[in-house]
């Protein structure tokens, strides 16, 4: 909210310059977002928090200044001359819904002359961002900016029946507001009506049929108090946010309504002439009873961390216009109507901390006997991240948002979490898979000329059943770049398989390879899974084509929390004391025979000395039948008891070759 320094000075003095005053206001919670010097005045842009509607006007801000500097607060002084004729003889006011409107004050001013406002008034309003309209409308805005009470002036001659009724709108009732928009109303909207029809949206905006015009001579002036929740609901439902609704929503001062009405009437009389009828009609069914908050003095040091002198406390209360009374424990404080945020001890402690100054309290560290700890699995997560970094994967963060058609393409079986109120069409649900995000990241970078990319993301996926973390890896281009030292080499399926195996092995997750239930966005011949732990492989070329990615892309999706929770503590194995013996075989196998078959036969050969089996060469064509391929493997034998003899090793070799021949028709390549 904008406030004018000149205007503030009418109500309280600040013995410092504008800059210093700005700092002080910030320090008591009225943050100065901007300061502007113009036309001999300084305008502060204040960030008034929602709990302090009392500071949405100059008198309220001046009250805070008076409390900061201990200077007196001067309220606006005015003289109101009333005619003999009573307002109540000309108008009647009734409230049908006192739960929504607790007070309604009205005054009737006749014979006014509508015209432009004097320059001082125009300048005041313009300085705080309010457009000048005419003298009467400007006065109602002026009093709102001065005292915080929103007012409304009607052209009394357009009201039918000399009657004001505060009631809920009827079903399908309509009204055109001052902004020229015709609004459909309903019973949740509170209106000000005359004998015939609604003439204003209570606390939000007046109607165009009853507005003050150049021809207006008689004015009916409203100063009322409305229930904040009701005004908020109406304003939201109709998409309106006015200076009046802004104040009523946060809570106006019910006590000031009559005074504000008189203040405005006096100004109208002064600037637009006319005759103010005698007395304010004040419909106030149950007068506001001020609350009392108690403060135990011992709570000040116990809660804030340092003691504050009684005189300082009492001065703060007095400057804030809190009537305080000393008790054996501390104080009882009567809460004035403008402080809707104060109800208990905690609120008073805040006032003391704020006005005594946050900087007056020392900085201490709380005593503690406990201990701290990271999330479960944190050490493993850090280990995983260092492995991934070492393996060349760069971490990405993508939005959790997605849309249903994308999600259905990747996770047909998962019911996504949908929003009632999405912001954009491509963010209507939470993601069920990390795949689209990482492919989009790849696409973004490829489109910007990057090549040879390796990413990972460790983040949550969501479904209606819950949320869990997943790890995704992705690679594209070459794993090794062409350089003066090296030839280039592209990522392969096997690079990814190796990285997945490394991760599984690091955390001791023992699983077998399979190829069942692979998602259809993978290349059918170049994808696999490790049980429920991981699915990986090349992305289907058609899928990439649809994303205009013209490179092979390898992806691995890993259920990392399952792996971390399945992990077993590795126990150290003794280092073998006897030498290992390595034997190499070049086998001729039928095309289509998988390596796994060879491996299994050797592993299950019953030779306990087999310590390692590794393929090291594969030749598709050569001096052997076309139906065959050559696979070279090395087998490492190792005994923990003794050095193996040549004769033993040869027996092992023979046994293995026999088994391979029997089961797979394998032969040694000559």
């Amino acid at each position: 909210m904008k406030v004018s320094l000149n205007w503030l000075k009418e109500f309280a003095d600040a013995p410092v310059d504008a800059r210093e005053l700005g700092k002080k206001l910030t320090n008591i919670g009225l943050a100065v977002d901007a300061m502007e010097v113009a036309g001999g005045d300084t305008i502060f842009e204040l960030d008034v928090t929602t709990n302090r509607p009392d500071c949405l006007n100059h008198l309220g801000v001046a009250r805070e200044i008076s409390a900061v500097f201990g200077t007196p607060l001067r309220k606006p002084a005015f003289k109101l001359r009333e005619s003999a004729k009573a307002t109540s003889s000309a108008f009647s006011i009734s409230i049908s819904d006192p739960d929504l409107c607790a007070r309604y004050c009205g005054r009737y001013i006749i014979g006014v002359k509508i015209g432009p406002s004097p320059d001082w008034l125009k300048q005041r309003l313009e300085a705080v961002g309010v457009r000048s309209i005419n003298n009467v409308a400007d006065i109602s805005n002026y009093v709102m900016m001065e005292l915080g009470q929103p007012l409304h002036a009607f052209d009394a001659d357009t009201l039918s029946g000399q009657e004001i009724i505060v009631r809920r709108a009827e079903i399908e009732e309509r009204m055109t507001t001052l902004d020229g928009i015709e609004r459909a109303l309903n019973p949740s909207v509170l209106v000000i009506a005359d004998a015939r029809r609604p003439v204003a949206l209570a606390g939000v905006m007046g109607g165009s049929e009853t507005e003050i015009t150049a021809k207006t001579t008689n004015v009916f002036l409203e100063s009322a108090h409305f229930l904040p929740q009701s005004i908020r609901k109406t304003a939201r439902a109709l998409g309106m946010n006015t200076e009046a609704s802004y104040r009523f929503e946060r809570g106006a001062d019910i006590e000031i309504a009559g005074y504000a009405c008189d203040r405005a009437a006096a100004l109208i009389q002064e600037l637009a002439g006319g005759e103010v009828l005698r007395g304010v009609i004040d419909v106030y069914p149950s007068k506001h009873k001020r609350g009392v908050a108690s403060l135990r003095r011992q709570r000040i040091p116990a809660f804030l961390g340092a003691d504050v002198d009684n005189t300082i406390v009492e001065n703060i209360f007095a400057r804030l216009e809190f009537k305080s009374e000393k008790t054996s424990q501390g104080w009882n404080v009567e809460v004035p109507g403008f402080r809707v945020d104060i109800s208990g001890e905690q609120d008073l402690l805040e006032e003391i901390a704020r006005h005594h100054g946050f900087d007056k309290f020392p900085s201490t560290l709380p005593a503690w006997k406990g201990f701290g700890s990271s999330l479960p699995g944190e050490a493993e997560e850090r280990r995983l991240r260092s492995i991934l970094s070492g393996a060349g994967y760069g971490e990405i963060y993508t939005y959790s948002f997605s849309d249903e058609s994308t999600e259905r393409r990747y996770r047909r079986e998962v019911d996504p979490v949908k929003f009632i109120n999405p912001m954009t069409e491509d963010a209507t649900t939470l993601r069920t898979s990390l795949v689209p995000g990482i492919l989009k990241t790849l696409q973004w970078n490829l489109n910007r000329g990057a090549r040879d990319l390796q990413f990972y993301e460790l983040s949550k996926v969501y479904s209606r059943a819950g949320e869990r973390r997943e790890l995704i890896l992705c690679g594209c281009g070459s794993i090794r770049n062409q350089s003066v030292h090296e030839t280039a080499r592209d990522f392969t399926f096997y690079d990814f398989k190796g990285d997945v195996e490394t991760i599984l092995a690091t955390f001791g997750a023992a699983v077998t390879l399979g190829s069942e239930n692979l998602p259809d966005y993978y290349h059918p011949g170049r994808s696999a899974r490790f049980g429920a732990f991981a699915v990986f492989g090349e992305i289907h070329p058609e899928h990439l084509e649809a994303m205009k990615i013209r490179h092979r892309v390898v992806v691995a999706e890993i259920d990392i929390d399952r792996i971390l929770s399945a992990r077993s503590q590795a126990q150290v194995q003794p280092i073998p004391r006897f030498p290992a013996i390595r034997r190499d075989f070049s086998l001729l196998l039928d095309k289509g025979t998988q390596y796994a078959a060879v491996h299994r036969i050797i592993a299950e050969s019953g030779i306990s000395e087999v310590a390692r089996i590794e393929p090291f060469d594969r030749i598709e064509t050569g001096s052997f039948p076309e139906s065959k391929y050559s696979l070279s493997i090395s087998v490492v034998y190792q005994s923990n008891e003794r050095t193996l003899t040549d004769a033993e090793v040869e027996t092992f070799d023979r046994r293995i070759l026999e088994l391979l021949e029997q089961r797979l028709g394998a032969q040694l390549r000559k």
Partner: protein
Amino acid sequence: MSSSDGIGQLRSIEQQFDRECASVADLRALEDIRNRYLSRKSGLLTTQLQNLRNIPAAERAAFGQTANAIKSKVETALDALQNRLSNVEKNAALERERLDITLPGNRRRLGHRHPLTIVRKEIEDIFVSMGYTVEDGPEVERTYYNFEALNIPAGHPARDPKDTFYVCDDVVLRTHTSPVQVRTMEKMQPPVRIICPGRVYRRDQADATHTPMFHQVEGLLVDEGITFSDLKGTLERFHKQFFGEQTETRLRPSFFPFTEPSAEVDVSCVFCDRSGCRVCKHTGWIEVMGSGMVNPKLYSFVNYDAQKYSGFAFGGGIERYAMLKYNINDIQLYYQNDVRFLEQF
């Protein structure tokens, strides 16, 4: 043959050797010259010594002495030469292996942690060292935990669907990580000392300082005798740990429904050290957190004795801390994942 003749011959062999030796340039020539003078059968000096018996007995000793002296001189000279030449050869061999050390190193491709991970872990580590436990909770959250139990009742403007993603009437994407605090307090009585990092969602249009999804770290401490001074001290300590010992922390009164008194937390500008710059809008201070003393109204939701316990809470954006730490000027960089950005961490 007289001995003078013999000795004369020896001297001329010696002179010849000196001449030839001076022109030896490699190990092969060295071997040649060694053979020529010292070969067991035909070496010039060997044959001279073999001639010893032809020398008259009286002169034999002198001849023998001279011959042996020359032989040993030749041997020493050849050994020294051998030493020198083989060093030259070794050096030449090493020289042939000389690399162009100015070619770039063959660097292994290393991955990078995302700046938000780096900063999140750093914040977690600082608070763990101060005795806090890290807690986690759901991002799809019941309105009870996201609003009601935090003193934001139905109808409160903070629940407006223009600011919050609703899944249904009573389920939202959490707008802060505070629900984790409520869930933790439900599970245990004080003392409570936790931080809750995680993803949160608000319906903000994306710009240089806003994204509809971001990350927060919130902290909560509830115990007997916790004061506003403790809040100040804790945040001061944290910011010194995170930004450096020169960092100052300032609390300014503010308002949040779940704390009272509430405070915005500013740190002395990390870019200009309070002398005023564009980033801190020439105020010398940068806002980083919201904080305050836990509003005792919250304790009634979790059955804490408000007379016995007091506490504080604080929370800030991880994106913001990373922006200040690394001088990042656009929050969207975190989610674009451009490798040219990511590679810098």
